[in-house]
Structures are given as C-alpha cells and as structure tokens.
C-alpha cells in the first residue's frame, strides 16, 4: 500500500463520520469484543483438552476430519462442512446453558416458545409442525416453489399415492387395510390456542377430499375427530383428551379410540387379559422440545392414570397393528412415562377390546414409512396369513406439505414386499459365536441424528465371514444390526467402513431387546439378521 492516496470519484457517496470516542475507551470496547468472541471457545478448548488429557485443538481436528472425509465419508464435501459447522456449535459447552436461559427468559417475559413448541393458554403447549400441517397446503395441492426454495425438497412423494399403492399391495395378498389417523391436538383444543370457540373439530380444509381419496384407494378409514370432540365435551369427569404438555393423546382418548376401532372391526368378546391400574408421570415431549433449564423448569409433571393390560404382541395373529409413538406412548418408557415398559399402550388396549392378541409393529417417528417397510419385510407366507392391517398414524404426517414434511423428516416411500418364504429364526450357539468378517455393504443412514424424528436407531451392515473365532460359522454372508445412534449421539458402529475387517460377537436379533424396538435402517431387506454391539476393527 503506497502512501499516495488516489482520488475517489464516488467520495460523495461516503457519509461523514465523527468518532467521538477516546482512544482508551476504544481500546476497552475492542478488548471486550475480542474477549467476547475469543474467550468462550478458547476456554471450551482448554476444558476439552483437560478432559482428553492431550494437547490438541479439537475443532481443528474435526475440521480436518471433515475435509479429508474421515468423518461422514459417504457425504459430499459441502455436506461434510455443514455437518462440521453444526457439530461445532454443539461442542461449545457454553451454548446449552445459554440457550436454556434465553428460552426461559423468552418464555417468562414474552410467553414465547420456539421453533417446535407454541405456548398456548392456561399452560397448554402445542407442536408447531402440527399447526403448519393443519393450515398449510396439504397433501392434494402441489406446494408452490420458487427460485429461493430449497432444491433438496424436490424429490418428495406425497402420502396419497404411497398409501394407495400400499393398499393395493395388501389387496393383492387378500389383506384388508384400516387407516386410523390420530387427530392433531389443535383440532380438538383450538380454544387453548386462539381463545375463540369452535363449533366442532378444526380440520384441514382438504380433509373431506383426502377422506374421499383414501376410500377410493380401497382402504377403510376411521376418523376420530368427532369422537374426540364429543369426549372433550364430557371432559369434566374423564379428564382431557390430550395431554397438556405433550403432543400425544391422553389414556382416556386412546382407550376410546381402541374401543371404537374394535367396534368398527366387529371384534369383541374373546380372550380376557389381566388388568391393573398404575399412575405415571411425565413432563411432556413439548416441554422437552422447549429445552429449558432442568433446575428452573416452570412446567409441572403431568400425571396420568393408566390401565395396564397384560398382553403381548403375537406375530402369528391375523391382525397386524402398524403405528408410531401414538401406539407406544404408554408402553415405551423412552417416550417419558415410566422407567420400564408399562404395557398400557394402544396396542394392549386394542388387544383387550378385540379379545385377542395382535401382531404389533410400532416405531416412534416411523409411522409413515418405516413400519410399512418392516411389515413388507415379513416372509410372503406370513403376510398372506394376515387378514387385517391396522395402520395408526399421526394425522399430522398425512397433512404436512412437502417442505414441512421434508423439514420434519417425514417420508412417504413405496415399499417392496418380500417374495421369499419363511426360514428358521437365527440362533446363536450356546456360549456365543464370534467371527472376523469384512464389510461388503452398509445401509444408508442420516448424516445428522439431530434431524431425525427418532432418537435412537440401529442399522444393517452386510459382512463376508473370513474366520470363526469362537462357536460355529453361522453363514458365509451375515446381515448384522448395529446400534447407529442412541439419544441422538452416534455410536462407534457408525464408523464402519466398506472393505474393512472387524471382529464381531454375534447375538440373535430376536433376543436383542430393547434394541429390537428401535428404528431399523436396513437396505438389504434382511430376513435373517444378527445383532452385534460394537464391531472391533482389525488392523
């Protein structure tokens, strides 16, 4: 830079500037600013170094791992950089407390929720994607796109064609399909959001046409809106139809839905199941989504009285129940109620109402596609023995527009039914089996577990067995499920690489509870899977 300044022909465009700040004050502001942006990550790094007992700059390491492809090797470079960026914020230890405090201040000062939770009246909370589903473009009209729209949203199939195809596939196998869309909380309790009274349930403007389309596809549909509205009107005695702080239905509404469904299926008297009553508590998934400080959470625990029904899923039953967290809410402890399985969920109450056991396939967050895929993987002879498939799904999934469905990871994929017949269930010899095997295929999995509707998942990896270490050789080729992520944190197995050799301690898949109930990511349509916790790499 020379010392001879050039004339600026656009000098007149620059505004006059008066800096009435002393040099000392300017230095103070500068030091404060640099400390604000520099100290928090620096202290964070020291803390991580102390924990790791090594001197290394972890963000730098993560950056190099992202650039070199060591992390997320199957993603493109721009995707890896984005993942690095989002993980960076999560690794800053001061972010979480600051976020929680900011949320508490916003809640107490402005009655404001966040991107997921809307704060209603009298302590009621609502799920924002549900409001968007109720008021958005819906499944029948193509959502308009512009040059500014996210290009990744292009390849999304709307629900109705996927449902129609599934219904047709079942019809070809002489299986009847019943769809039970669970109404959205806002449909039944609009007054807790708007303070305006409604004459009936608030539904999506396209709901009558959607109902018609579904009937045309050959499926039978049980709409619950009116039933729930009537239940709400009798609220005083039985309690609300939905939980105040949770997206899910109350035990009362769930039991009423099970009874109504059994009536529609013309099922009734039969086997008696043992019953008991318990009380369970949860703060609710909508409070969890608010991400408030644990010690200063203004929302109380919500108690429910549950009717426990001692009934188990029976894979031999001619009735199959497919569902999501609405089926699991009072059974699966990961959804907030209880420490162990409670056996008070929709499936158990449906079995009691029908008087017979039912084959249950229910995955949290997987109501749209995952459960259909799981069902379609059953051997052909097993599927053809079924008479009825009951598909309980959140109405929200049905009405989300394309962009919102993509944002909420709701996919409506076509499923391919298995054409193979049953084979004996995998068994692992007494004392276990241990092998050395090479990876020959890995199922696709999401790059960022924080974007999925499920908090935990297992995925399938295909191996070629090279050597048996202990026990007998189960087969030359093995399909093994590994834990992919737990509580949205990737597990070590997520790092398996194609062509690498691993040491595996095998376990029979059907004995691998509680992993058995998690979301499965399986590209191989595995009939005969094994389970292994951690594949140990062999150099």
């Amino acid at each position, binding site marked *: 830079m020379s010392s001879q300044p050039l004339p600026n022909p656009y000098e007149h465009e*620059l505004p006059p500037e008066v800096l009435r700040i002393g040099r000392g004050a300017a230095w103070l502001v500068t030091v404060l600013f640099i400390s604000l942006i520099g100290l928090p990550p620096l202290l964070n790094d020291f803390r991580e170094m102390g924990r790791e007992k090594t001197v290394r700059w972890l963000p730098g390491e993560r950056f190099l791992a992202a650039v070199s492809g060591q992390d997320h090797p199957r993603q493109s470079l721009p995707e890896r950089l984005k993942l690095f960026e989002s993980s960076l914020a999560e690794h800053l230890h001061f972010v979480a407390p600051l976020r929680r405090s900011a949320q508490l201040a916003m809640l107490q000062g402005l009655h404001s929720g966040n991107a997921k939770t809307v704060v209603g009246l009298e302590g009621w909370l609502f799920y924002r994607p549900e409001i968007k589903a109720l008021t958005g473009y819906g499944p029948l009209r193509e959502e308009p796109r512009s*040059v500014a729209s996210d290009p990744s949203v292009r390849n999304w199939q709307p629900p109705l064609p996927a449902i129609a195809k599934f219904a047709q596939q079942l019809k070809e196998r002489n299986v009847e399909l019943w769809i039970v869309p669970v109404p959205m909380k806002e449909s039944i309790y609009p007054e807790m959001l708007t303070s305006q009274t409604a004459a009936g349930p608030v539904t999506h*403007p396209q709901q009558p046409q959607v109902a018609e389309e579904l009937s045309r596809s050959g499926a039978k549909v049980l709409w619950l809106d009116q039933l729930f509205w009537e239940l709400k009107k009798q609220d005083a005695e039985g309690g609300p139809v939905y939980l105040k702080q949770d997206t899910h239905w109350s035990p009362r509404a769930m039991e009423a839905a099970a009874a109504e469904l059994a009536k529609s299926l013309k099922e009734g008297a039969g086997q008696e199941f043992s019953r008991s009553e318990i009380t369970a508590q949860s703060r609710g998934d909508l409070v969890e989504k608010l991400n408030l400080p644990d010690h200063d959470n203004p929302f109380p625990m919500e108690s429910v009285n549950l009717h426990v029904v001692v009934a188990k899923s029976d894979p031999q039953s001619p009735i199959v129940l497919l569902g999501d967290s609405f089926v699991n809410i009072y059974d699966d402890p990961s959804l907030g109620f209880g420490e162990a399985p409670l056996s008070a969920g929709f499936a158990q109450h449906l079995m009691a109402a029908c008087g017979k056991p039912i084959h249950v396939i229910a995955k949290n967050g997987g109501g749209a596609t995952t459960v259909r895929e799981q069902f379609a993987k059953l051997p052909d002879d097993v599927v053809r023995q079924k008479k009825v498939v009951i598909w309980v799904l959140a109405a929200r999934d049905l009405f989300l527009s394309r962009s919102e469905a993509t944002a909420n990871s709701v996919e409506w994929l076509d499923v391919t039914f298995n054409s193979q017949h049953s084979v004996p269930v995998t068994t692992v010899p007494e004392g276990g089996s241990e092998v050395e095997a090479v990876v020959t295929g890995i199922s696709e999995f999401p790059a960022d577990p924080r974007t999925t509707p499920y908090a935990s998942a297992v995925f399938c990896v295909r191996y070629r067995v090279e050597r048996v270490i202990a026990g007998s050789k189960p087969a030359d080729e093995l399909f093994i499920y590994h834990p992919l992520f737990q509580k949205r944190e990737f597990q070590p197995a997520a790092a398996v690489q194609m062509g690498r050799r691993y040491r595996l301690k095998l376990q029979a898949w059907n004995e691998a509870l509680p992993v058995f109930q998690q979301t499965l990511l399986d590209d191989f349509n595995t009939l005969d899977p094994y389970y292994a916790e951690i594949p140990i790499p062999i150099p």
Partner: protein
Amino acid sequence: MVFSSPLFVFYFLLLSLGVYYASPVRWRHAGLSVLSYIFYGWWNPWFMTLMFGSTLVDYGCGRLIANGRHRKAGLIISVTSNLLLLGFFKYCHFAYQSLGAVAGGLGWHFPAAPGWMTGIVLPMGISFYVFQSMSYCIDLYRGHAPPAKSFVDFACFVSLYPQLVAGPIVRYGSIAHQLQHRTHSVEAFTAGIARFCLGFAKKVLLADAMGQLAETAFKAGPGSLSTLSAWLGVVAYAFQIYFDFSAYSDMAIGLGRMFGFRFIENFNSPYKSRSITEFWRRWHISLSTFLRDYLYIPLGGNRLGSGRTYVNLLTVMLIGGLWHGAQWTFVIWGGIHGVMLAVERMMGRKAPSDGVWRPLRVIMTFGILLVTWVFFRAENFSVAWQFLTAMAGCQSVAASAGLVDALMLSRVALVYFLAAGLIIWALPNSQQLLMRLTMGRALGCLLLFVAALAVLFQQGYSPFLYFQF
C-alpha cells in the same frame, strides 16, 4: 458461512482479524483473499473456481484496457463474459421454461429442459460479485479508476468477504484508493465493532422473528389465511426483508471498518419515504446507484425527452427486478416500481399526494410497497393473487384460519410488531445512530450483541434473505 452463525462469530472472525493484523502490510491482501475464498467456498468449494475464473478474466480485460490498445475489446470481453456467467447460472433454465410456456401457449411442441439444465445450482452471491468484478473494467474504461497494482489486490477486491455475497455492491472506483492506502485506528475499529454488533442484533432479534411470522402467513394454504393475517403477514415480510438486508449491510460495513475499509451505505430509513422515487434513494442504494450509472445513464437517462425517460426508468426497474431472481414475479415487482417511478416523474410537482400530510404520504407509500412485496415474496402469480385477494377480504376462510390468526396475534408477535414499527419509524437508523460514536453507544451495541447471541442459540440461525439473489 453466515455472519450470524457460531462458526463465524467464534472462530472465523477472530481468525481473519488475527491473520490480517499479524501479517506484514504487503501480505494483508493475500491473506484476506485466502480467507475470503475459504468463507465463500464454505457453501460449496467448487464455487471458488468460478469466482477465481471470473476474477482472472476481468483482471486480464483490465490489463487490455489499461494498455490502451484494445480498450473496447477488453470492455466487451469483460461485460460479455460476466453477463454470460450470470445468464448461464441464473437465467438459463428460466429462459428455457419461459420459451416453453410461450410455445405451449401457441400449441407448439417444446421439449422438456434437459437434465443438465434443471440441475444447475446458483452459486451463492454470484449476482453481487459479477457486478463488482465487471465494474472494474467499466471504471477503468471510463477513467474513473487506475488499474489494480497487482492480481492479488484485484482478487482481494472481488472476493472481500465482508460484502461478498449480499452487498453493498462496491464499485472498483470507490475502493481503488483504499486498496492502495487506508488508515487503521483503534477508534475506527471500534466503529466497525459497534456497527457489526448492531447489525447482528438486528438480524437475530428482529429479522428472524419477523421471518417466522411472515412464513406463517405466506405458507398458509387456501382457506387458512384471513384478511387480518394476510396484512400482518405482508407487514412482517416488509419488516423482515428490511431488517435482514440492512443488518447484513451493517455487518458488512462494520467488518469492512475492522479491516480499514469504508463501504458505501446501502440503506437510509427506506420506509420513511414519502414516494417511491424517494424509496429508491433510500433502499439498496448500492444497487440503485449501480443501475443508474451503468444502465440508466448509458441508455440516455433523462436526456432524450420525457417519453424515453419513462421507458428507461421502466427498463431499468424491470432488469433490476430480474436481477433479484429468475422468476416472473420479480419482473412484475420491478415493473410496478418502474411504473410508479414514471408516474411520479410525470406528475412532477403536481402529484396529488404533494399537499397531503407527511405521515399520511409515508403510510401511502408503505401501502404501495406492501403490495409490491407480495409479488416479491410469492412463489408464483397464483400465490400472489391468492394473497392479494386475501388482503382484499375476497377469500372464504375455514376454521383453520383461526390458528394462523392466533400465531399472528400472539403476545410475542404483537411485541415484535410494535418494536419493529418503533425502530423503523420513530428511531434513527444504524448509520445515524453510530455517526457520532460515543462510549455509551458502543457499549450498548456490545450488550445487544450478547443478547442476540443468547437468542441465536435458542432459535438457531437462518441465512440472510438476499443470499438467494
């Protein structure tokens, strides 16, 4: 990389300031260029090659013009190559689709766009840096600036990350002298900090909150949008786009100050305008002056009679609309502005609004702007029409509209609307506020920055609206 992201605030900003001030003076432009390429390549590393290619071509053309023998050829190659680059990435598919629509309307067969064409991804900020890079050759040709002393200086000008992806559009002539000589002082650095912090707070505390409200209204399907929500939605969008874009400009100007540069102001309280003509003197000033100097005046400006002036105004605004995006709604947006500019010019001092009470004129102008923003925000004409009819109260609504109303009229929404309105109409703008920088104001900006950081972590960060243009 986004200014309002933890990666930028906690790592990249400190790194770039450190590299810049730790480097010997002669290496500073090289260091800044490398950092700017990293900043830009964060979206997609392959886009860096595009920017480098454009820089190389314009630098070469600049040499041709400076040598004096092939001046015109240098200019033509520069302008043509830049417009071709922009045309290919931004308008190729759009032009093909539009031709297809015309042919379809005439009953002719027109094949669907080939896969390579539909797969074209618009490189971030291309509309901005192509204009900047092109301005180098034009300013050289006009004798408004000397040639860059080195390729590194020129590459630094084109890639300068503070204003690379969303402006202000810095013309070479306005910065050439700063590339050769600029002063650094802790006072100016502090002014930069204050401006950056204010922009950051504006983006996180106001623009993003308004964006959520605007999205609620604009994403409401048929039957779910009441008249009240439609009006509130478009007001929210008007507030969002102003806060978002002016916040980016504030941050860009502030960052520029930290590196010793002074950039042109981009906004001057545009919603205080009493006419559309005044609005364009206050809104996106760097674009309107660019279009004025490089398009309107070369077309003849107002020197060729009234009729030609109106045509020139309309042409410039239509092109300005199209510059924002390859979509006919943008062209209509520009067209309405062009017509309004022409009408106001035609009326001159006899404009009927002249005798009207000043606040009423501001409201009338804002009302016109709201209608134009509908076209700017809507994905297509059908959505724009649906929205406008909802604003006019000509749409039947279902019970679900009550839920949209509830969100638009929630306590937090009303607080935001009120705060935004006050800031826009009752308070001085960022430039006016910080024109006389005092210790108190600087500390106030730092406090706002801390509050905005906390809210940023709570709500997550979103990219700036103008990135898509």
